[in-house]
């Protein structure tokens, strides 16, 4: 049993560190900011889960599990937010290479907003504005 747990810890730790290595290689070799974002999120969730599981099993203690779950839950909550902010900034500042995209669903919304008059009223049809003015 002891040997089995040791081997399990070894596999978990090595796989978790492999996620970090994958993120580094992806950051280095991928051509575009959006694809690099895809690579950079690998160690954030899966890598941390494996490393934390290895740590808790190696220490043989349930007392560290809530703290590790707190750290991992924080990663789960904050990774989408920061990825969203980086992607949004990249889309707006033309850092993202848009010619490499297969589908750009945000473009329709951006065109709609930029073609509408600068009142901020985007979805309002002409009849509704007339009624509101009356």
């Amino acid at each position, binding site marked *: 049993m002891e040997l089995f747990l*040791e081997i399990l*810890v*070894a596999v978990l*730790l*090595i796989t*978790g*560190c*492999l996620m*970090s*290595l994958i*993120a*580094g*290689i992806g*950051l*280095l070799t991928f051509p575009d*900011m959006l694809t*690099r*974002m895809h690579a*950079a999120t690998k*160690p*954030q969730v899966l*890598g*941390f889960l494996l*490393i*934390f599981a*290895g*740590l808790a099993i*190696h*220490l043989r*203690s349930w007392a*560290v599990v809530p*703290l*590790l779950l*707190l*750290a991992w839950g*924080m*990663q789960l909550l*904050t*990774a989408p*937010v*920061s990825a969203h*902010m*980086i992607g*949004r*900034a*990249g889309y*707006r*500042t033309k*850092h993202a290479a848009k010619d490499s995209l297969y589908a750009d669903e945000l473009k329709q919304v951006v065109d709609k907003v930029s073609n509408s008059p600068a009142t901020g009223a985007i979805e309002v049809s002409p009849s509704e504005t007339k009624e509101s003015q009356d």
Partner: protein
Amino acid sequence: MMEIVIWICGIMLGLATVACVIRVAKGPSILDRVLALDVMLLIISVALCLEMVYNRHTDYLLFVIAACTLGFIGSVTVSRYVSDQRNA
């Protein structure tokens, strides 16, 4: 056996850090650099966990949580201020 595992993990983390440093130096935009520095902070957290595994203690758990929070705040702050200068 744990010694060998720590060596393998350390070498992988070192290679990942070198890749991140190269991307920080090369990165065409500031967002690439923010992304690479975020990954470097994650590598630091993983290295703290490896140290805890090697020496069998739990002293650095709060540092791991603090590093996660720092990475989030840093990347959100920088990307908030990367805006289109024509509309700023």
